[in-house]
């Protein structure tokens, strides 16, 4: 079977490339895209369902279909004649890698947008540290959170979580904001997906295995949850309800045609069934959620909703303000405008900042920050219903390490300065960058 794509935009040609890569892997390894499992194999998999991590299939011939840096190259080469909002004069002075003039917020606009992160508002991640007596902020904030949950007020929860979520309330608050409640039909739906996994083997399954083994299994925080990741991601790839998000995405799901019927829509099926081909690091979208949910179908629902609301924007090309292209441009613009010396210096030595920060943003910082910090960051993604905070944080990190970065003389050295973010506290960084830096 061959795969083909019927749209030719920046996203379209990117999709073509991915599918070509998948196709050639398929041909090289002589593995079908999908096959029905023999009954014996089905039984075996069912028995091993809770410990698929102990399986050691030979994955050496599989390679990730693409990695974030491949995607970055595509974004760098984007040229779009449809200017969103003409400020072509200033854009010609844009010295970053992104050459698509989308409208992005400046710091005054960001301060307004993220007003609850301001210096005079209490924050979890700052005002709950051990030096601060809990009576000043934390106790009251917890009390309000409990009230919001008791009233099951989703909008209030979203507003509340802008100041961060107490650890004990986070799982419920996120579920409330994402409108996830585990009804029997949800659990049944998950079980049905599990049955699909048991019955059919997909080529992407091997890609998922490989990704988990390469990323989450080696992570200090997430290695424990390896088995949950398989249980979520294998089901995810078979979930056709995910196709729904393509309606508001600029992407389109890859289609496959029954042999001999190329181009005939009535013989088209989506591949993989959910239309999402995983890339290197994809499993890291799920991993942090394992700290909150340990019931597989709930974990699954939460992840799926996070994906179709947020994460899909991080690896598809669009002009949406939370899309990765806008985030890259926002990051570069913030740096060039407010840290020009640093920006020019890094450019000079061949270390375009986006080359370093791109992977952070594509993964929503998962795997780069300590888990408690990551969860505080994702609180704000939910609270503001926007991914722009990822670009702001990326710029704030550069600002924080500016002194060291000014002294490096190569891309490799710059990478080294920014290699370890595990000790960073995100809220102080964001607050200082947005509200305490002279603009």
């Amino acid at each position: 079977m061959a795969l083909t794509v019927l749209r030719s935009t920046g996203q379209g040609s990117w999709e073509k490339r991915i599918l070509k890569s998948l196709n050639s892997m398929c041909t090289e390894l002589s593995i079908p895209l999908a096959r029905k499992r023999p009954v014996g194999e089905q039984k075996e998999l069912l028995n091993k369902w809770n410990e698929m991590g102990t399986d050691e299939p030979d994955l050496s011939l599989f390679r990730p279909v693409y990695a974030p840096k491949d995607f970055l190259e595509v974004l760098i080469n984007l040229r779009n004649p449809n200017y969103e909002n003409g400020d072509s004069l200033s854009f010609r002075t844009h010295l970053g890698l992104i050459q698509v003039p989308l409208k992005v917020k400046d710091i005054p606009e960001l301060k307004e947008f993220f007003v609850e992160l301001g210096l005079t508002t209490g924050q979890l991640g700052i005002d709950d540290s051990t030096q601060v007596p809990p009576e000043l902020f934390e106790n009251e904030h917890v009390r309000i959170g409990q009230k919001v949950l008791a009233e099951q007020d989703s909008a209030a929860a979203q507003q509340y979580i802008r100041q961060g979520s107490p650890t004990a309330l986070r799982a419920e608050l996120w579920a409330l904001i994402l409108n996830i409640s585990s009804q029997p039909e949800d659990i049944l739906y998950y079980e049905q997906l599990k049955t699909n996994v048991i019955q059919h083997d997909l080529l992407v399954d091997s890609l998922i295995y490989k990704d988990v083994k390469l990323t989450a299994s080696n992570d200090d925080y997430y290695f424990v949850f390896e088995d949950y990741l398989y249980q979520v991601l294998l089901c995810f790839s078979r979930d056709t309800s995910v196709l729904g998000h393509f309606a508001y995405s600029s992407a389109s799901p890859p289609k496959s045609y029954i042999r001999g019927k190329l181009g005939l829509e009535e013989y088209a099926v989506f591949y993989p069934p959910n239309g999402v081909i995983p890339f290197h690091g994809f499993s890291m979208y799920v991993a942090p959620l394992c700290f909150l949910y340990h019931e597989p179908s709930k974990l699954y629902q939460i992840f799926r909703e996070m994906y179709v609301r947020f994460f899909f924007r991080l690896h598809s090309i669009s002009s949406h303000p939370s899309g990765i292209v806008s985030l890259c441009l926002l990051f570069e613009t913030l740096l060039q405008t407010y840290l020009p010396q640093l920006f020019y210096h890094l450019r000079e030595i061949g270390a375009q900042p986006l080359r370093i920060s791109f992977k952070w943003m594509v993964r929503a910082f998962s795997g780069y920050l300590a888990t408690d910090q990551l969860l505080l960051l994702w609180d704000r993604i939910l609270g503001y219903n926007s991914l722009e905070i990822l670009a702001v944080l990326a710029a704030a990190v550069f600002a924080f390490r500016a002194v060291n970065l000014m002294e490096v003389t190569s891309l490799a050295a710059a990478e080294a300065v920014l290699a370890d973010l595990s000790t960073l506290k995100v809220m102080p960084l964001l607050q200082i960058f947005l509200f305490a830096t002279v603009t």
Partner: protein
Amino acid sequence: MAGKVKWVTDIEKSVLINNFEKRGWVQVTENEDWNFYWMSVQTIRSVFSVETGYRLSDDQIVNHFPNHYELTRKDLMVKNIKRYRKELEKEGSPLAEKDENGKYLYLDFVPVTYMLPADYNLFVEEFRKSPSSTWIMKPCGKAQGKGIFLINKLSQIKKWSRDSKTSSFVSQSTKEAYVISLYINNPLLIGGRKFDLRLYVLVSTYRPLRCYMYKLGFCRFCTVKYTPSTSELDNMFVHLTNVAIQKHGALGSSGCIAWTPRPFCHQEDYNHIHGGKWTVNNLRLYLESTRGKEVTSKLFDEIHWIIVQSLKAVAPVMNNDKHCFECYGYDIIIDDRLKPWLIEVNASPSLTSSTANDRILKYNLINDTLNIAVPNGEIPDCKWNKSPPKEVLGNYEILYDEELAQGDGADRELRSRPGQSLGPRGGRSRDSGRTVLTTWK
């Protein structure tokens, strides 16, 4: 006048030696005049043995108490805790309160344990009460999971039955002494995996008791999934979590696992990047997120409680030699009702590092330990009051300071209602920051 501290060690580990060298200390041999000796447990035995008549001078410090084995030998630890409980019961202390089933409310933190062969008959009586239970056999004097096996049938320990019948005065030193403990078959699982906790506790003096808890303890996870089924008894990877076993273990065929020499390593089971460990902070985050804050705080309070109680239990019999301090490795298992169990205490916690992070942790552990035990890195005077200033604690926190606790008023010791204050806090004041360690209410 201040000279350089002269150090000796018979444990050649870089985390130690780097710490000595960075303080500008001078390495000497044990035959020369030394100020600081980081000893193995074998050496401490000979230093303090009656025959050698070794006398330490005021400017000499060692890293073990002479009879640390009262705490660190599995059988003696249990014996001391049992004795301590009985004493408290006799004096009518509220700490020794029992529930309607006769179980101690506050002091039931060691799994039911018997010595073999001495208590064989007592053990059999207990075993028959719940014949489907599993028990774990551990040799008293070994570490790193050596010689440990599980049993669920009396026939599996026939050998000790014979021994107990033949001679009641078989000396403990000629036959390998074992303890047999009720196996905790409902451990708390995370990601379906069993784990145990390794916590470091520094004791600078036993009377008065002054001890510190290292904030950066860690959880050690099993490589494979935990299942309580009996067929898995053979798979000791599941049950034993010691990193040493995870690194070099192999399976036995008869329900027993023997220590295997290196050629039989299963290196591929051991992930070289993280070594299957979580920080205690990760554990706390996970538990708060999935179980709630109150039960998590209660769990950590209980963990601190059982450590202090174990130290109080051995304090009366410890030789509180002023030349000594000791850094223990506490092994604790948490069950699925979030109750912590004390499994054992190690006198010589491993200073080998399995990962880069591990190396950093152990280096810092030694560093902070030395800062407390050898103030200012100068030639010690063992007559000092062993009360370091707050600033040098590093990653240690005061766990219990008997002197400070008693200063708060002796009457507080006796206040007890279930869940209420059973002892004053150890040396914590409001302006030193929020109490994170003991919230014994």
